[in-house]
């Protein structure tokens, strides 16, 4: 594992007077895959939004390779090399598949590089290649998730953040999405993933953080958390045996 790439120190985020994150600290090292697990409303998505600049922390520090990035606009964060693949896919429904992919590369100026990345995405997701001229809103849920992942990769990020990539997908598609996340990570990208499916998230990752009501209440390797009685009882339920 490389050195620390992304670090959050005592980050607090408020929605009005309500604190959604209380002094959250975590780090992601280069080449690592880190999962954030926890129940609905635990602050997982809020953490990603604070990193990508959609929300400004009211206290604490966010640093990227030692440089403070807390409070930067999403554009600045993306330029720094962090892509955020948001919850619920959020493809642009009336743009074509190709236009959605091009939006991912909006900040890039290397035409040739964009074209070759587009070809790579089509090779990786042939379904998207067949539907390049189709409006993204007409794709199935699984195809939209593939498009959202491909769009995030089009910015050539060094860290990619996935927010609930398996949400609302049929079981066979869930497996496909996790296989893609594993591939991406094997290609050397650093991954920070939020997942409600704790079993999959912990099996895939190197390390994980457990969030409860806006606080980090546990951390360790995926295997350690899988073995933790608290995690097993609260998040894995009857599935724990399958791990």
């Amino acid at each position, binding site marked *: 594992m490389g050195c620390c790439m992304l670090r959050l120190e005592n980050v607090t985020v408020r929605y009005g007077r309500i604190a959604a994150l209380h002094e959250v600290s975590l780090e992601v090292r280069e080449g690592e895959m880190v999962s954030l697990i926890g129940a609905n409303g635990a602050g997982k998505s809020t953490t990603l939004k604070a990193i990508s600049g959609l929300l400004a922390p009211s206290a604490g520090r966010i640093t990227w390779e030692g440089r403070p990035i807390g409070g930067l606009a999403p554009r600045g964060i*993306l330029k720094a090399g962090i*892509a955020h693949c948001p919850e619920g896919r959020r493809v642009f429904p*009336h743009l074509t598949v190709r236009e959605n992919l091009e*939006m*991912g590369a909006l*900040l890039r100026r290397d035409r040739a590089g964009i074209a070759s990345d587009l070809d790579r995405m089509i090779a990786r997701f042939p379904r998207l290649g067949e539907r390049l001229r189709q409006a993204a809103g007409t794709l199935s849920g699984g195809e939209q998730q593939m498009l959202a992942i491909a769009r995030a990769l089009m910015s050539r990020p060094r860290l990619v953040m996935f927010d609930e990539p398996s949400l609302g997908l049929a079981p066979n598609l869930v497996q496909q999405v996790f296989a893609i996340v594993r591939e991406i990570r094997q290609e050397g990208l650093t991954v920070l993933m939020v997942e409600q499916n704790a079993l999959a998230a912990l099996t895939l990752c190197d390390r994980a953080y457990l969030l409860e009501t806006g606080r980090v209440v546990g951390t360790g390797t995926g295997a350690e958390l899988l073995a933790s009685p608290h995690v097993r009882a609260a998040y894995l339920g009857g599935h724990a045996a399958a791990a």
Partner: protein
Amino acid sequence: MMDQALQHLVNGTVLGGTYALLGIGLTLIFGVMRVVNFTHGELYAFGAYMVYALVSLLGLNFYLSLVLATLLGVALGALVELVLLRPLRHADIDSVMLVMIGAALVLQNTEMWVWGGVAKMVPTPFVGTPLVVGPVSVLPLRLFVFAVAVALLVGFWLLLDRTRIGTAMRATFQDPQTASLMGVRVGLVHTMTFALGSGLAAAAGALLGPVFVVSPTMGDLVGLKAFAIVILGGLGNLPGAAIGGFALGYVEEFGAGYLSTEYRDAFGFLLIILVLAIRPQGLVAARERIG
């Protein structure tokens, strides 16, 4: 009988072109910014006054004046957005509406103050004798106005459909937060949208000012009609606004031709009442469809 209908069809098409310009500007602003832009009619009047000032007072070339008047409309739109709307980005729609009504009043009264209440004529290089093709006759100036309006519509569509900035605008229209994750500067898109929409209104005024007369209240009725067009097509629907513009042009021309000239302006509003009663989502089905 057939000849008369053909003449109304031509007149309606010519009128519809400028109505489409007005409607597209207004619906774009609503779609991207959720701003009900009451200054739209005043931007139209502004474009007309600028052409008057440039041609009659400064003696500039007519065609150059049209271009400059449109660009000045773009600049005024950008100014309104930066000074009034940017600080209200997260305000509720009612506050923004009140501010825009105030801005419209200020613009109109400034026009009254600067130019006086007497209507102005704008001289044009076109002859006053109509072109006659078979049973149909049309004034050369009106034909020119229609051609420019169509060229602007096509240019605007190409900008939205074929350029990076156009794709970014459409993405912002559909999902501003995700657009910002792609690196779009949403604030800049808002300024550009308002400036472009205002420029289209000013272009319509610059084109129609010389056809009719230029007066400080000319923006009132046009502002209302622009809303009518946008409601016809469905709020925030660009192709809908173009179709609504032509629909209004035809209804007015045929209504004036066959029913009553005096109620010309009423026919359009009658159509809106009908559309709102029967198809409140507008004539064109797909809502929020852009490009």
